[in-house]
């Protein structure tokens, strides 16, 4: 089985600070990593491979330095990586088009896995868009996956209800972070990952020409969160009573 995992290199959002004067996030000097939920997708791909056999290719669209992060996924157990070097303003439609072109270029692909969303922008668009461009079935928000030779069965978390569904291959599956705990690579796996291939494809060559972003990001600013900073200083019982009253008034408690 040929499995493709789409993984995105993101900045470590836990380290982002907002410049108090401009309200813009300060991104320089912040460590980059693979988006957490995409690592869950890689882990699930490895489990699929362990069960039914096959080959795992990691695809990423971004800057050339993503290669170092892709190596981590190869150390976990993916077999090869492809970094599609694309301009920084590539938005969802461009990225989905590029990934679809890459999947087609890879040839026979049975399953495409990705995280339900990336931890930096969390739009959740990529999986569904990619399935649309590839014109294959999609199973989103997967919390459990059982792969067989000719079909896959998944459990999906749809907020107010859960659904169990099955699909033949090829299929796109987006996973949630609850699906598994990504493994840590051993020292030996880290050492052997350096011999696994990482190819670099150019966006324009892959798409057969320049791709125009449909959406332009004009500005990104942190959202200020105002706090009420109320301190209840009466005796404990009275304070609790007041706090519960205030929370009810705010609609937090009903």
């Amino acid at each position, binding site marked *: 089985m040929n499995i493709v995992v789409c993984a995105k290199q993101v900045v470590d959002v836990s380290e982002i600070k907002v410049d108090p004067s401009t309200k813009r996030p300060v991104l320089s000097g912040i460590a980059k990593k693979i988006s957490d939920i995409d690592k869950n997708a890689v882990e699930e791909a490895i489990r699929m491979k362990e069960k039914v056999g096959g080959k795992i290719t990691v695809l990423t669209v971004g800057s050339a330095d993503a290669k*170092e992060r892709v*190596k*981590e996924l190869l*150390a976990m157990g993916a077999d090869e990586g492809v970094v599609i070097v694309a301009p920084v303003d590539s938005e969802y439609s461009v990225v989905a088009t590029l990934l679809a072109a890459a999947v087609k270029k890879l040839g026979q692909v049975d399953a495409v896995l990705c995280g339900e969303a990336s931890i930096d922008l969390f739009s959740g668009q990529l999986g569904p868009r990619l399935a649309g461009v590839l014109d294959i079935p999609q199973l989103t928000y997967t919390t459990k996956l059982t792969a067989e030779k000719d079909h896959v069965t998944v459990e999906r978390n749809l907020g107010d209800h859960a659904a169990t569904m099955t699909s033949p291959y090829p299929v796109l599956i987006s996973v949630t972070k609850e699906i598994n705990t990504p493994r*840590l*690579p*051993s*020292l*030996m796996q*880290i*050492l052997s*990952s*350096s011999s696994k291939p990482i190819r670099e494809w150019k966006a324009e060559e892959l798409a057969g020409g320049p791709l125009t972003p449909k959406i332009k990001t004009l500005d990104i600013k942190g959202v200020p969160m105002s706090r009420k900073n109320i301190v209840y200083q009466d005796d404990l019982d009275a304070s609790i009573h007041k706090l519960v009253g205030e929370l009810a008034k705010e609609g937090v408690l009903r």
Partner: protein
Amino acid sequence: MQLELTEQQKMIRNMVREFAEKEIAPIAAELDKKEEYPTKTLEKMAALGLLGIIIPTEYGGAGLDTVAYATVIEEISRKCASTGVITSVHNSLAAWPIIKYGTDAQKKKYLPLLAKGERIGAFAGTEPNAGSDLAAMKTTAELKGNHYIMNGSKTFITSGPKAGIVIVFAVTNKAAGTKGLSAFIVENTFKGYKVGSIFEKLGIRASQTSELIFENMEVPKDNLLGKEGDGFKIALSTLDGGRIGIACQAVGIAQAALDESISYAKQREQFGQPIAKFQAIQWMIANMATRIEAARLLVYNAAYAKDKGERISKHAAMAKLFASETAMDAVIDALQIHGGYGYTKEYTVERLFRDAKITEIYEGTSEVQRMVIASSLLG
């Protein structure tokens, strides 16, 4: 001149950092309190190859260099200094002398067991009346037929009660002084091998430290490490490498003290502002961070020299001396920053304070490190 880890070394450091955060940090305080050996953690570490870091790949290890090894010991010690020293002793004091001085048969027999973590390694040089003064050693080994008969006792042995493979030093020729010392690979299953008292310690309480007692212990002739009389040389060269490990442990403890101080100083408010806004706190943190950076570079320098095959006694002694004193300075300041809370077991810094002290003592006290440095300069 390159002062940066390679991408591969960074990947290793990141993997160990993540492992330590997830698997070691949550249990470190509890193990310290109960003086409980981290057996389960060591099993998980073995699966990741962390018990065979420097063991060649043909014997089931990862075959990594000393710089990569240094990053591993630092990251583990940053979350638990006990697990750090167990790993350091296992790799650099038990596996290394076998890699360096062992016969093919000894390597084939013992290195895979250490690499897979099926046996934990220890090093037994110290005796009640012989610490850094190895020549005062009283344990004897006398060749009778196919066995050496060993008698004597060792003390302050890290992992003593749990170790399965121990590098033991004993006198084989009393008249020859330090040239009469020999090294042996001893298994805890040998007849006459006994674990003595387990010490109740101030710090690194999860690393069990004990006496080992040998009563007419039969050590097969084949378990002599190197030649008869090589013991002194083997002990000194092994301890040079071990000191790099302890220096890494010290840097890890110091880094943890800095991590805790930064996070506490930012959230603790006094006089209407976080204490991080006060210059007195800022200076302590700045000094701590600067010394840690310097200590880490000294460690990498010693590790790099070892990988190049240079004589490292001076480098290793300098790294160990500076890193251990840095750790002690760091925990004193870190506890001061934490105020009264730091004096309680509620806060990690209390454990760091107790753990740091041993780094100035074992594998050669700071005074011994200064002797080593001075003698390499003055002859």
